[in-house]
């Protein structure tokens, strides 16, 4: 992404944030209507978590087909960002919960499932940390991501819907309880975050590529005499 797009993204996100406080009316029907505007940050973060994990699964599958190291880096970057947004969703949710339910943590199915979700990807990162050889690490973590994906779908879509929960579902999309401005602000913020996601994703990849180049250079510098015992041809 070039500089102008980056700057525009920044302005967009800042603008939507300001709008959420100045333009958006308080959300009636919540215990603290003023604090409830946090929902326009909370929900996009949660949605981006899913987007990121979906991207991770797609690149994992692609990696197994192509065995291209860069694809593996993409899968990893997506998982890292997914983790980041999961943390943001939890933090905003907890702030919300403090106002709405009186306690930051209630073992609500939503809360449980997002923790489980984070555990899935914590396990993914542990697995990556535990395998030295790069191609093997890529293969195994891709396989794991694909195995964990159905479980994740279950945790996100099925579990919170079959267990009774305090947490709202479909408030914003089907029922007409909230001011339509909410939908607009929320999707605007989502669009802004998506742009941030793409930007961070590419940044992460650039770092990865630069690191790989450095490592290769380091190897060349420190091992000039690398032909012992006929080690290579």
């Amino acid at each position: 992404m070039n500089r102008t797009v980056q700057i525009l993204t920044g302005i967009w996100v800042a603008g939507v944030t300001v709008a959420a406080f100045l333009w958006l009316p308080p959300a009636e029907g919540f215990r603290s209507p003023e604090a409830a505007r946090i929902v326009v940050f909370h929900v996009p973060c949660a949605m981006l978590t899913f987007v990121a994990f979906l991207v991770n699964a797609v690149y994992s599958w692609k990696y197994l087909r192509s065995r291209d190291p860069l694809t593996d880096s993409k899968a990893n970057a997506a998982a890292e960002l997914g983790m980041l947004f999961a943390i943001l969703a939890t933090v905003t949710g907890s702030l919300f919960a403090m106002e709405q339910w009186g306690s930051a943590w209630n073992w609500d199915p939503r809360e449980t499932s997002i923790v489980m979700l984070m555990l899935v990807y914590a396990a993914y990162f542990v697995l990556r940390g535990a395998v030295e050889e790069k191609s093997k690490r890529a293969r195994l973590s891709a396989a794991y991501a694909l195995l964990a994906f159905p479980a994740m779908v279950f945790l996100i879509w099925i579990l919170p819907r079959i267990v009774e929960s305090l947490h709202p579902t479909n408030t914003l999309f089907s029922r007409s309880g909230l001011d339509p401005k909410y939908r607009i602000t929320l999707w605007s913020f989502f669009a802004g975050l998506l742009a941030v996601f793409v930007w961070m994703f590419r940044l992460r990849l650039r770092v990865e590529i630069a690191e790989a180049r450095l490592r290769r250079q380091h190897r060349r510098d420190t091992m000039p005499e690398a032909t012992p015992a006929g080690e290579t041809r």
Partner: protein
Amino acid sequence: MKWQIVLRRVGKVFDERTVLRDISATITAPGAWVISGPNGSGKSTLLRIIAGLLTPTEGEVLYLYNGERLTARQQRQAVGMVAPDMALYRPLTALENLRFFARARGLSLRDSELLEWLEKVQLRPRAHDPVATFSTGMVQRLKLLTALLHRPPVLLLDEPGSNLDEAGARFIYQTVKEHAGHGIVVIATNDTRELGYGEPLIQLGA
């Protein structure tokens, strides 16, 4: 030219270490070939690539039968391999090990036939002892049998004579000679005795 193995510009890079580069060869039945080279030159790596146990970073290995490519399954059935890093099931007896490999490959061999195989490497009296109690050389003999059992047209031997006594070395020699009459044998070795078992195919790290 029934059986052929074609290596097309095969290369292997581990992380950033290039072990094999641009290796091409055509191996045609019948005959025995030797891959030689000092320690760490990539003999075992090349043999594992030929066997299909390792995917090369570049290039490819083709198995041809009368000019046609084999499927992965056919290729697996066509190969018998022995390598220092391939172990047997140590808690199982010699006979049980043979029985498993026979069944897994879809062979219906009776125990009496398997015992005859064991006889060939002087292990018949130990048929019912767990492999864990075998000496290094006895294990190596049994490994040879598991590679021969399905009479594969392609035999890949990585340092087959290591830890063997003279009788064992003789068995290898005979096996190679016999096999080279109709199929393909590829031997990776440093052992001066074994260097002469076939024609030089590739000299690595020279």
